[in-house]
């Protein structure tokens, strides 16, 4: 058993079968809304049938927690893609770097992010700002694709 589910005891039934009793796995926490409108003899709240789980942004923004990291943006070369100075990036390392994705790359000693264009002969890092030129990655560069940007969180 993985952590948590511990076997407590085995019961022997009269027909010879054995039932193993395990304790419940209580390692994870799932927040459920607490609906308490008391017990009354009157008309129950009609809203009771429509109770939802609360909105959890973690579940929507982070598909793969084990592979997700965060980064802070410095600079404006992706401003037309809606990414500006000070923004928080959510980076998923498990995604494949494909053309057109915004990737966090490590190039010559620092992290950067750009739209990537991969062809047989080269990798292009394309900015989203007229003031910047695409970067052509050659064999001389110390380069690796670190992860794929999935979301931007910004203060407004």
């Amino acid at each position: 058993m993985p952590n948590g589910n511990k076997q407590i005891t085995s019961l022997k039934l009269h027909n010879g079968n054995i039932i193993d009793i395990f304790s419940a796995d209580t390692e994870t926490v799932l927040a459920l809304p607490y609906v308490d409108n008391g017990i009354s003899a009157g008309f129950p709240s009609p809203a009771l049938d429509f109770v939802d789980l609360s909105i959890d942004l973690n579940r929507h923004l982070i598909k793969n927690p084990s592979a997700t990291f965060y980064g802070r943006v410095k600079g404006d070369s992706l401003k037309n893609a809606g990414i500006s100075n000070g923004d928080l990036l959510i980076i998923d390392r498990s995604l494949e770097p494909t053309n057109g994705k915004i990737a966090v790359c490590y190039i010559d000693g620092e992290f950067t992010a750009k739209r990537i264009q991969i062809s047989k002969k080269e990798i292009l890092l394309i900015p989203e700002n007229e003031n910047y030129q695409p970067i052509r990655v050659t064999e001389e560069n110390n380069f690796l694709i670190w992860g794929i940007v999935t979301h931007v969180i910004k203060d407004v």
Partner: protein
Amino acid sequence: MFALIDCNNFYASCERVFRPDLNGKPVVVLSNNDGCVIARSNEAKAIGIPMGAPAFEYEKFFRQHGVQVFSANFALYGDMSNRVMTILSDYSPEMEIYSIDECFLKLKGFDFFNLQAYGEDMRCKVTKWTGIPISVGIAPTKALAKVANRIAKKYPTETKGTYIIDSEDKRIKALKWLKVEDVWGIGRQHSKRLNAAGVKTAFDFTQLDDDFVKKQMSIVGLRLKLDLQGIPTLDLEEMQIKKNIATTRSFETNYTEYEQLAERISTFASSCAEKLRKQNSCCNSIMVFIHTNGHRKDLQQYSRNIIIKLPYPTNSSIELAKFATQALQKIFKQGYAYKKAGVIVQDFSQADSLQQTLFENRDKRHIPLMQAIDKLNLLFGQQKIRLASQDTKRVWKMKQQKLSPRYTTNLNDIITINL
């Protein structure tokens, strides 16, 4: 079959995930207080830095060889370990996390799987998702999985990081390759004795007589021998809740006064109490120890410990600090220079299922008080609320001159991306 998955040079690898410029360069990580080397990258091993090398002795060597030195960043390593283990737990329903960077998976019912491909898939996924390189060893028993892992780690290109012992030939070849002192669970003392008896390799060890092994190394040694012979005797071990909790420290200078020690003991006791509350336990007995510096042969030596049985189970900082201080009074002797002290709490019971006693001296008001303290300390940082018997000005400070940012656990420390 069992798989043993081990992260390669785990602490050094964690640092490199966020500093890719250090790939291919020697990296070492130091123990708490920057004492000695506890992790080395392959490059650091290659230039001859031994495990446990004292940092101050090697300072010049590090500089000369361009070795990147880090203080241990356990917040980072713990988080990265968690990620690796979570990914690996998808590969089998039965898992034993053996240490921060190692786990066993039981591969029962995987007979028709291509295990080589399965292991390579683990390696590929963990490395891509977390940046941590791993090695996979697969074999019919846990001890042999350990051996297989060693081979995978030693020959990463030939094995693609995954090695399987699945035939008698491979088993014998592997055991003849492995020195007996490198066998999992054979310590230095045993290997010295075995070497003297002409046992050089793991294979030699498996050729020994069962009774001889049992006599020399008890049933534990015999189980290991059978496991190495391919007869499964060791199974996955269940996770256990901690049976004792210790807070011990060496002091930066020698303490000679009772008041100095009492303050430390009081602090250690409340730290233990906090850990107890975290796992919802109370303790029934407490051990306090003090000792002088054993390396200073020029000084008078004294070391003592005492265990006291508590009148009732508790996890209150106030009560544990009180009992611990009483214990200290019993063993403290004037006239010695103390270097180390500690508090160990043991004999636990569940906090919510305590027995009522007729003559109970326990103060029930402590329970909500401790909850309030824990909440405040969580909100405002460690040790903001303390007992008056603790030094209120003192801050817990480890020597961590080369600490890397907590990239994954603190929003202020995440990587900067230059656009």
